[in-house]
């Protein structure tokens, strides 16, 4: 039966049907909010960081099946990783972990990578602010 399900790998369908880590984190250490310039979809990624390790991640996504599956996959991949390890993840590694994506849907995995980077950037800038606040207090 040729249908839209067969467009996607089993892994993609699994993450689409049972997305992991859906939702928001209260007081996250980093938030990524990105829009897909190609089709106009939106993803939000929240991370909680302890020491240098990502201890929790949650997402919200408005997008196609591939966008939802890559969002879910990326949260699963980063939990337990250090920030530096997480930064090594690219849209390709996410797509690979999902058993591949159709060519027309590769841009959706870029959304996940962008969201991850933006969440980590946000984490870094919060850290800096935190440090300068701490310094200011010391003085």
């Amino acid at each position, binding site marked *: 039966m040729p*249908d*839209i*399900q067969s467009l996607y790998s089993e892994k993609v369908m699994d993450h*689409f*049907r049972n*997305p992991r880590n*859906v*939702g*928001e984190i209260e007081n996250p250490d980093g938030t990524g*909010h990105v829009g897909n310039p*190609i*089709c*106009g*979809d*939106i*993803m*939000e990624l929240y991370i909680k960081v302890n020491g240098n390790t990502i201890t929790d991640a949650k*997402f*919200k*996504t*408005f*997008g*196609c*099946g591939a*966008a*939802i599956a890559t969002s879910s996959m990326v949260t699963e991949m980063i939990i337990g990783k250090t920030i530096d390890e997480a930064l090594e993840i690219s849209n390709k590694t996410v797509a690979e972990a999902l058993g591949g994506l159709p060519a*027309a849907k590769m*841009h*959706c995995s870029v959304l996940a990578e962008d969201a991850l980077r933006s969440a980590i950037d946000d984490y870094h800038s919060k850290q800096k602010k935190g440090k300068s606040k701490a310094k200011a207090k010391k003085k």
Partner: protein
Amino acid sequence: MKRIYLDYAATTPTHRDVVKAMLPYFSDSFGNPSSIYSYGQESKGAVEKAREQVANLISAHDEEIVFTSGGTEADNFAIKGVAYANPERNHIIISSIEHHAVIETCKFLEKRGFEITYLPVDKDGLVDPDDVRKTITDKTCLISIMHANNEIGTIQPIKKLATIAREAGVYFHTDAVQAAGQIPINVDDVGVDLLSMSAHKLYGPKGVGALYIRKGTRLVPFMHGGSQENDRRGSTENVPGIVGFGKATAIALEAMTGEIERQTRLRDHLITSILEQIDGVRLNGHPTKRLPNNVNVSIDYVEGESMLLNLDLENICASTGSACSSSSLEASHVLLALGLGHEQAHSSLRFTVGKWTTEEDINRVLEVLPKIVARLRAMSPLLKSHK
């Protein structure tokens, strides 16, 4: 799980009686209609009978029907045919919600020196006849406005529009691919000069359609070759396809009144129930001037392809105008022309019912859709920002 097909506007299954009518023309009566021996004449007779059946559907004369390879060819034929037959005029008026077969044909001509006016539509998808009147110039050779829209089902005031064209001495074409076989059409009553049809939208086979050409209309042939179709379209006739098209129109005509009533009931039941059961839903297209089979809604905060995929997991086939599910990754030009934002176009869902849709099918959709929407909304970042 039973498969529930609610995408009849995309294509319809070929009616079994149609297939039965076609079968003899593959291996038994296979002759070329242009041959004079009896085999050929059998085929010729079958083609002419089909021509009569198709003409009947729209109250045309047999000789005004030219068979084509489908609706897209009929649109191309009508537009390029008129454009190139009237070299002293180079202006064409179309609506901004035409099918790609019309829009892309006009864009092709635009690159070759033609001037195209793309008329806006109102929030329900209707063209304003005054807009048509105002944009006609002495260079206008053709006005092409679709009878009913494939995405939102809105039915245009074709008679009014065609009258304006006639009074101005401009040819009027209508793409009736979605309307033909579904709602009554009488070409003399509405006064169109050209009208496109397709067999596979009315339970006929794919790969065959027709262009109605009012007697006396000047247009150049589309396919150059033999003298088939009265010198208007060379190529050996697709005899089985044409026979199937003829049979399908005969069935459609007979069933029309009952089907309009039945499908309208299913359509309205689905529309009112979706609006009742799910909040943040907008009906796209005109509430009453719409095809009996068309339901198109935008469901806030959820993307169309992810809804389709979820429906597919429940064995329900529907369609969407979301950018994500189009190969061009562009949102539906029809929905955008209604004034919808990109997010609303993204959130659109189209169900088109048909001959074999039952009340039960509709109830099944109503059972699963609210759950799907709730699930997807729970993961939508848009919902929060709109709270």
